[in-house]
């Protein structure tokens, strides 16, 4: 039996998910519209989003939402047709409406409706913009008295071209009452002139029904324009109806069935529904009512009937098909069951599997679990490979299996990671609203430009990026971009520009937040830093170094604590958050010209493609994406360079860093060391190791809380043989080395 409640529940859930996408699109379209109020495309987008929200809402069990949005849709429909001019008020109020809908959908309590009620004033304002429209009148229903009609139904020749089967209308008429149907064949041409794709038949139907003429016309609604239909009521003294008796039961010996079912007030309220049941039962055979309900409402309640028919159980069940809550229980009575074949199993509610799905929404924790499992699988795979290597001579079957496992697990990893990748555009879009609202509050004119919306990032990463980005955007709006008069005085365009861009570079994504505001004031930062004891008064740092001070905990430059930023969450928090994502943050500023903050983030948090190296017997992994090549470094070469630590690479002098020196390993260095040439921010640098062991696909495990202050390693991984290898964070390694300024690490960074 069909569980309508369950369908409804699931539908509401699906709708909630869809609605959040639609609301985001609505908001984006509204903001585009605000920028260009005559933009037909944006009006269309607003209308479409509103239309879908309304239509889907009504179908998904949110009728009040549908009613609520109905007039807003009207406004934008009128705008589409040029009857209404989109004004800032309309946009503003529609945004408020969209906010109310968001809150309404988030609220699963009984109070949800109140949210819509409270938003009514916005609706009233919107409605005031709508041209007056005429109300539609309801058609009154006519009383039920059986009347007789003669109907002549002549489909047009091309009826079949619309995929229509004229038989369905005859069936519908049968459901309305008692019929006598005569097929008329007089227009059929000779066989050689007959076009089988045309309809030559027409019908005369005499019908006795309690319905009225409009109910009959309703039957033919689909073919209204594709047929000639003539309906006239028959007077009592006109030719009597040759009403045919119900179709006689077919030939096989009839069986006796006992059917229990119930009729609810809802099904009784639907016109024709219950009548069609009795009619269907009459067609199946002869039935007798054994028990009818004695409740207050006539017919509503439990029924038991007996039915004599030669047809089988599924066919009988079909008679109940329109009365979804009838819950019929169909049993063969004992007397006939014994002599007959075993009863056919009940027909399953659903036949056939859903063959095709466009998209599937999956809870992200399920995918996280999948990623973890794949991570474990990759480690296990490495262990198998390592075990094979130690065996030396491996049986071919094992060798094949091991290689197959390698191939499959690599592919599986790629697929799973791809599943988690999401375009950053959605995150960017959220900022349109933020920038709009904040710039209004601040009385500044700001244009938000986004670039690289299609750049994909790991879902987890995107989620965790949101807060830091909000903070950066707020900072730019609050401190960076100047008020209009100040901009004009400085000879800059009236409107400030805030730019959000994303770009993939190798296995990292750069996200840049930049503005063309006043830039950082180095003098002010310096004074503040000294005030707060973050910088010795005697220090003479470079401008770049002064800028870095804003990333120190407890630093805020706002003269007054505004409502936007300066709420105690400083840039240090942003920096820490980005670093937790294995990212880095970089700031550049030019006084009077603006500030640019660049975040560099890994594509994914889970797995990296690494290059395994060894130093003094320990193994390390560095990201393969930054490694360009490896060259040899002999002891003689090293000594000849005279402690300057540079190596010549095709005419270019490349500085290098010896991990041996950096980590303080004192064991004997091999005669021949290896230099891994890495590329960082368009510069080549060398990392000197003892040995390069090869590519290694690495599942990243974070180092944990205890070791969180260690910056030169971004994590660790478990190797095939069970040992742990640390993962080198090369950019931080260089920073660290620069700070160490130890002998032998004279690297200019």
């Amino acid at each position, binding site marked *: 039996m069909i569980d309508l409640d369950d369908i409804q529940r699931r539908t509401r859930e699906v709708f909630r998910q869809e609605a959040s996408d639609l609301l985001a699109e609505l908001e984006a379209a509204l903001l585009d519209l605000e920028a260009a109020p005559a933009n037909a495309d944006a009006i269309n987008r607003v209308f479409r989003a509103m239309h879908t929200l309304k239509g889907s809402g*009504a179908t998904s069990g949110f009728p009040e939402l549908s009613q609520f949005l109905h007039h807003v849709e009207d406004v934008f429909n009128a705008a589409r047709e040029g009857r209404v001019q989109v004004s800032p008020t309309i946009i503003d109020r529609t945004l408020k409406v969209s906010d109310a809908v968001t809150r309404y959908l988030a609220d699963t309590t009984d109070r949800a409706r109140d949210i819509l009620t409270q938003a009514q004033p916005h609706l009233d304002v919107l409605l005031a913009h709508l041209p007056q429209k005429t109300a539609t009148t309801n058609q009154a229903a006519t009383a039920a008295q059986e009347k007789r009609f003669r109907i002549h139904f002549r489909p047009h020749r091309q009826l079949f071209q619309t*995929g229509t089967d004229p038989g369905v209308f005859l069936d519908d008429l049968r459901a309305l009452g008692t019929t006598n149907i005569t097929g008329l064949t007089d227009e059929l041409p000779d066989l050689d002139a007959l076009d089988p794709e045309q309809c030559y038949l027409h019908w005369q139907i005499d019908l006795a029904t309690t319905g009225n003429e409009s109910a009959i016309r309703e039957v033919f609604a689909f073919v209204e324009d594709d047929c000639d239909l003539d309906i006239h009521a028959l007077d009592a003294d006109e030719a009597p109806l040759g009403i045919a008796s119900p179709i006689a039961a077919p030939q096989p010996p009839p069986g006796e069935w006992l059917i229990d079912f119930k009729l609810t007030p809802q099904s009784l309220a*639907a016109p024709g529904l219950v009548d069609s049941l009795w009619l269907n039962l009459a067609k199946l055979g002869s039935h007798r009512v054994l028990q009818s309900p004695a409740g207050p409402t006539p017919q509503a309640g439990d029924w038991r009937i007996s039915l004599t028919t030669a047809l089988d159980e599924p066919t009988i069940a079909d008679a109940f098909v329109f009365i979804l809550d009838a819950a019929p229980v169909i049993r063969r009575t004992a007397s006939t069951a014994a002599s007959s074949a075993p009863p056919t199993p009940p027909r399953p509610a*659903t036949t056939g599997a859903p063959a095709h799905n466009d998209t599937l929404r999956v809870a992200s924790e399920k995918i996280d679990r999948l990623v973890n499992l794949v991570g474990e699988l990759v480690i296990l795979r490495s262990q198998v490979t390592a075990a094979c290597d130690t065996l030396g001579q491996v049986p071919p079957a094992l060798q094949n299996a091991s290689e197959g496992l390698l191939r499959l697990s690599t592919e599986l990893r790629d697929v799973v990671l791809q599943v988690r990748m999401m375009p950053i555009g959605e995150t960017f879009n959220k900022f349109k609203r933020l920038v709009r609202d904040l710039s209004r509050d601040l009385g500044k004119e700001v244009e938000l430009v986004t670039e690289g919306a299609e750049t994909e990032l790991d879902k987890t990463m995107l989620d965790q990026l949101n807060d830091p980005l909000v903070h950066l955007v707020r900072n730019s709006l609050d401190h960076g971009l100047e008020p209009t008069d100040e901009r004009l005085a400085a000879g800059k365009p009236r409107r400030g520009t805030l730019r959000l861009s994303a770009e993939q570079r190798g296995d990292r994504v750069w996200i840049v937040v930049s503005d063309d505001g006043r830039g950082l004031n180095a003098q002010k930062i310096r004074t503040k830093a000294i005030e707060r004891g973050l910088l010795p008064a005697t220090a003479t740092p470079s401008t770049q170094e002064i800028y870095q001070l804003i990333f120190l905990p407890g630093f805020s430059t706002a003269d007054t604590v505004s409502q936007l930023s300066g709420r105690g969450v400083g840039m240090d928090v942003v920096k820490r958050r980005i670093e937790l994502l294995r990212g880095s943050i970089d700031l550049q500023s030019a006084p009077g010209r603006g500030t640019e903050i660049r975040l560099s983030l890994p594509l994914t948090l889970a797995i990296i493609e690494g290059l395994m190296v060894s130093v003094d017997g320990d193994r390390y992994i560095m990201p393969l994406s930054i490694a360009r090549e490896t060259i040899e470094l002999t002891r003689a070469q090293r000594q000849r360079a005279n402690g300057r630590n540079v190596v010549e690479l095709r005419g270019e002098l490349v500085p290098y860093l010896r991990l041996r020196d950096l980590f303080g390993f004192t064991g004997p260095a091999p005669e021949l060391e290896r230099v891994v040439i890495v590329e960082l921010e368009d510069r080549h640098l060398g990392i000197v190791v003892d040995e390069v062991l090869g590519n290694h696909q690495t599942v990243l495990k974070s180092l944990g809380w205890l070791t969180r202050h260690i910056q030169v390693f971004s994590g660790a991984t478990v190797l095939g043989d069970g040992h742990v290898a640390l993962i080198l964070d090369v950019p931080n390694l260089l920073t660290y080395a620069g700070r160490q300024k130890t002998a032998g690490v004279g690297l200019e960074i």
Partner: protein
Amino acid sequence: MPKTVITVDDSMSIRETVKMTLQSAGYQVLTAEDGNRGLSICLTQKADLVITDLNMPNMDGITLIGRLRELPAYKFTPILMLTTESQEDKKVAGKKAGATGWIIKPFDPARFIAVVKKVCPIGEPVLV
């Protein structure tokens, strides 16, 4: 052999509702989010019934109906359009393009199944 229904709608809620409702009634249901996608599914899989929304991106419902009617395999296949009350003109255009009938949104599952059964009966003998 279950009857195959292809439902084309840019609203996921509608697609899912149509799908769940018709699956519960014993139909096999494929979904597409716009006319283009719907057409390509129809080309690879013969549907017994196509249910399409009218207002969709990429290819709208009326174009889809027209394109389907040009295909020999879909010349006589029932096609229902999903409309709202306010789309009377669209309904006429849809009929002109070759639609068999329409279903008015929002729909009640029981009525919806009834209309679908009407144009695409699921089993024999055909009852009402």
